[in-house]
């Protein structure tokens, strides 16, 4: 029991570790070089507070310079579970499929997250944990940080990939100066 849980945790860690290497692989979570990379909080040039409502962000766009590291403090002020995820539209589309599966398995239930379900071993070492460095999944009232370095110019958005939210307009544009 414990061994398999460790194994799962280990797999999850290793997957995240791979993600740190920018552009190492583009499958699954699709962290390509185009969207940037996780940044260090100490290098952050500024802090941007992003409030999540049902179903939109405030602010709905931010301007960054290429190479800038921004520290996002994300607060969920709505009544539903929301995500804040930085990436290209293609990445978001791929991520939406994973989020759909999370809803179908009861991990995301409207205004709450089923944490037990998240840790469930789906076989092959995959779990439904939501622990990529470029995104956070928050219950109402929760607050978390994402530190991101916008390496190159690109078509980047921050978006909520909970099924239906992106389509309803829960996204924000990242404009490069």
């Amino acid at each position: 029991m414990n061994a398999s849980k460790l194994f799962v945790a280990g797999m999850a860690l290793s997957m995240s570790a791979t993600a740190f290497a920018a552009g190492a692989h583009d499958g699954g979570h699709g962290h390509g070089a185009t969207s940037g990379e996780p940044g260090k909080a100490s290098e952050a040039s500024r802090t941007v507070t992003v409030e999540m409502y049902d179903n939109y962000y405030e602010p709905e766009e931010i301007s960054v310079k290429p190479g800038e590291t921004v520290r996002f403090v994300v607060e969920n002020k709505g009544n539903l579970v929301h995500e804040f995820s930085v990436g290209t539209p293609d990445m978001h589309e791929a991520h939406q499929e994973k989020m759909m599966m999370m809803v179908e398995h009861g991990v995301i239930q409207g205004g709450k997250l089923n944490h037990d379900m998240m840790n469930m071993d789906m076989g092959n070492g995959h779990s439904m944990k939501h622990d990529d460095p470029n995104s956070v999944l928050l219950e109402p009232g929760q607050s978390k940080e994402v530190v991101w370095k916008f390496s190159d110019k690109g078509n980047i958005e921050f978006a909520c990939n909970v099924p239906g939210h992106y389509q309803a307009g829960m996204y924000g544009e990242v404009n490069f100066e």
Partner: protein
Amino acid sequence: MKPRFLTGLLSLLMPAMVLAGEYDLTVDRVKIDTGDFVKEGIGYNGASPGPVMRFKEGENVRINVTNNLDEITSIHWHGLILPFNQDGVPGISFPGIKPGETFTYEFPIQQAGTYWFHSHSGFQEPDGAYGAIVIEPEKREPFRYDREYVVQLTDKHPHSGDRIMRNLKMMPDYYNREQQTVGEFFSDASENGLMNTVRDRMAWGDMRMMKADVEDLQGFTGLINGKGPDQNWTGLFEPGERIRLRFINSSAMTYFDIRIPGLDMTVVQADGNNVQPVSVDEFRIGVAETYDVIVRPKDEQAYTIFAESMGRSGYARATLAPEEGMEAAVPQLREAARLTMADMGGMPGMDHGSMAGMDHGNMDMDSSEDMSGMDHSSMEGMDHSNMDSMDHSNMEGMDHGSMAMGKGGQSDPFYAKGSGLVPTAANGGKFLSYADLKAQDPLYEDREPTREIELRLTGNMERYTWSINGVKYEDADPIRLKYGERVRFKFVNETMMTHPMHLHGMWSILDVGAGQWNPIKHTINVNPGTTVYMETEVDAPGQWAFHCHLSYHAAAGMFRKVIIEGGPDSTQAKTDVIAEDGGEA
């Protein structure tokens, strides 16, 4: 002009006065050209459909309605919360608007979203008297879009409403050209075996019911915004834009299954109230319902908005395109819908064993957000040995075996188990179910209902009489509710037809098993052989209409008056009878 100028002056002088809008509507005889036929009908401001009324949440509106017909008319604001005497139902709200008279409606706008308006006199609505209402919200909406269009559907028939009613009373299958024929007998026999087919025909013959009885009224031309399929209403867009489509079903009798081949639709509003967004490939819109969806066409091409009637006898279509004149392929109609014995489950005295209609009040649906469209095959890779942490007690309500499975394996808890009407998306994708609707911002706190009222939806197809609890409106006592209570209505559909039940003046909170997130609607569809629950906070004093919104069912007796006893002012609600001029209702 002078009184208006003075009112304007006063509104400047009195800051306490709120924003006010004044609108004029005339009710006229108009010519309706569907592309298939031209017919005299009734319209507003010289056209059918009437103009789109654009209100703002928070404003007080004054609408002057001038009746240019030679019969009494009325306008009912469908879905709007307003004082009961502004609701526009002759005999219940007010005496009606006489020929030549101008009646002024005045009420505050207390909501936002997509609604519609129509005559509540005689068969004026099927004859063309309908229009759309778009209300801009005070606060920002929980979704974004770059442009919007009203997409209003109707089933325009070459016969007038009076004539259709008379024909249906004379011969209930007058308009049904999808009945089972000798040809179908032989194809069924070769598919299912001769004895099975004979037994099937005899079982239905014994009941004197037709499994082909899905649509009472066929032979119509489906219109979108007043245009038939050939006339092809077109909405322009720029690729990449998000477009909000306000779908309104203003039909007399027809449910439409709507899809836009090539585009996903994200449903964000139902009956004017925001719902948690759900992306679908196709949805069924019942008579009088509205659904707002957001689509995002990315390619520089035309898309067909295809509205196929539920029984597959007719369709409406429109186009979304980057330029005028562009068209996309129009799909073929699918096979005619057929009821099954499961749809008969609601009938008293019919022992169909396991086919009884599902009692939705007992279904625990909290454990899963979205039951339909679940891909069970993807569960193979799950290592079930680690499932002890899963709370199985929540899964009791999910009996996958008993969920109504349609042809494509789709299930929908709001259809009888084994129903022939369970919709499936034409492209095999997701079809919207009532179970997918969850309120985005609940209007009321969830609390226990104070009492339950059972309303059996009944009727006799051969005589074409429709009723509630076996009693037609003409013989019925009003339903009495107390101001301040929360009533749980239990609709038991003992017929084999779908009925969109519409309560005026107060919201219907549909029980989908989501507790405080139950969606708020004004029109609730009840499928054959099923039981559906909805709750109403009784907060609107006065008296209100409550009826099936299929025009010819309401006229045949499926109608009730609801009287609210009590109110914010105890001297209110004198039920003294005041004889008013009779006339067309």
